[in-house]
């Protein structure tokens, strides 16, 4: 499918969805409004709310806070995941000792930690960063661990035959392999960094997109809730596009996946 046609079809889907939403929340069908505005608002109100946010400029502060929290969560979680993942993969004994605890913490729904982080770190950005870190860390950790463990034995043997020392093996073989696994999960880990930030804000904060949505919800301002959701969705799409660009640069050496043309 040519790119332009694909984009046209994608926009078409959005138009249909919004039109349906508008019609069903404004005009009665068989004497009944199927999407009562109290619960579903309507596209016009939502659009007005979004425009009002951008015109007055209040939204920038919240976007900025959420962005900073997500970036910090991603960076700190990734550093921790890479270091610990590397360490565990190279020291199987350490990994074996910690194995049950890693599984335990990973199985824990991270949301229950949010109140504790708020208690420890206050209502500012750091409690949200901490929540994001607990999500990002495990994704990166497991991928790096896998990446180091699953280095091709042939490539490893070849590196040895080429005269590499242990340190050179780390630098030229284990490290690139681990990073390639980490990069392949970049979309997931960045996504989770945003989830951590927004959920943290939602559960208690003074700024950010999660805060905005929670505030609107508190006063039954459904248009505000929907507006917040749309801004959040757009925010995530922009971040995802940036990640795709970064990924393309970092993984040039990889064969392309199956092309998306059918």
């Amino acid at each position, binding site marked *: 499918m040519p790119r332009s046609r694909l984009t046209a079809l994608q926009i078409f889907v959005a138009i249909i969805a919004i039109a349906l939403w508008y019609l069903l929340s404004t005009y009665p069908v068989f004497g009944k409004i199927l999407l009562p505005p109290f619960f579903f608002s309507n596209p016009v109100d939502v659009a007005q709310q979004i425009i009002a946010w951008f015109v007055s400029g209040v939204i920038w502060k919240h976007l900025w806070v959420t962005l900073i929290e997500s970036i910090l969560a991603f960076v700190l979680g990734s550093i921790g995941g890479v270091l610990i993942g590397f360490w565990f993969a190279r020291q199987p004994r350490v990994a074996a000792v910690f194995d049950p605890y890693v599984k335990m913490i990973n199985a824990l729904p991270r949301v229950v930690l949010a109140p504790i982080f708020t208690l420890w770190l206050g209502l500012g950005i750091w409690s949200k960063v901490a929540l994001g870190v607990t999500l990002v860390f495990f994704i990166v950790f497991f991928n790096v661990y896998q990446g180091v463990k699953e280095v091709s034995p*042939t*490539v490893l043997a*070849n590196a040895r*035959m*080429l*005269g590499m020392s242990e340190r050179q093996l780390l630098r030229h*073989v284990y490290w*690139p392999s681990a990073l390639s696994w980490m990069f392949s999960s970049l979309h997931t880990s960045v996504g989770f960094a945003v989830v951590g930030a927004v959920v943290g804000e939602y559960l208690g904060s003074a700024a950010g997109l999660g805060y905005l949505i929670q505030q609107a919800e508190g006063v039954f301002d459904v248009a505000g809730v929907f507006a917040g959701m749309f801004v959040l969705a757009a925010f995530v799409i922009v971040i995802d596009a940036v990640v795709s660009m970064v990924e393309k640069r970092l993984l040039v*050496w*990889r064969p392309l996946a199956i092309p998306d043309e059918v």
Partner: protein
Amino acid sequence: MAENAAKPAVGLSDVSIAFRLASGGTYTAVERATLRIADGEFVALVGPTGCGKSTLLNVTAGLVAPSAGRVDIFGSPIAAVNRQAGYLFQADALFPWKTALENVAIGPETSGMPSAEARARAQGWLTRMGLGAFGDRYPHMLSGGQRKRVGLAQVLIRNPKILLMDEPFGPLDAQTRQIMGNLLLDLWSGDRKAVLFVTHDLEEAIALSDRVVIMSAGPAARVIGDWRVPLARPRDISEIKLAHAFHELHRDIWHTLKAEVIKGYAQSEGT
């Protein structure tokens, strides 16, 4: 010393290789194999699939320790990885995250050569391999034959005294194999390294080598035959296969090998 000159590049004496199985028993892959390769000699090691010829190669490379016997490299016992040897693997062994040029340059770089110099030399090797314009390609962008050539350059740039090859042209198509075989002979004739070339293709073995060594079917594979190849060099692989002497030798060796191949096949198919 005159005695030194006579020391073989590779000396395997009564080498046995056994593996411990997960079920608790042991599996003897190779039993009491003895093989000497003189400096500058091209030896092909032929045997049925699964006879442990690759394992024997790994022992010579120092990647696997033998459970019994001696491995001497130029007269001294092997310690850890065989630094005198270059190894061309059957499977893809290039670093997928490095370009062709970086892959070739990595050997000299890790042994301390300045990066610029290593890259210049690597470019020279790629050009010799007919890949001068492909230096910035990653391995997945190259064909199977091109990858093998990069692999060969990666090994030869270090100028090893011994070349170990594990069915290096196995995955390639017939034409590419011939081209690669001629390329190998061409490069080898320049400085005559000792070569141990593992293959299951008898024709390839005779066409390339000075000596063909036959192993029996595993387990506990042994060396069961050793033939000198009386064909003149330089050789052209596609032409030499038409020579009368080639056919006689092939018939001769195949007579021994055939029984082992059938045995090996029965074992791999059997219950």
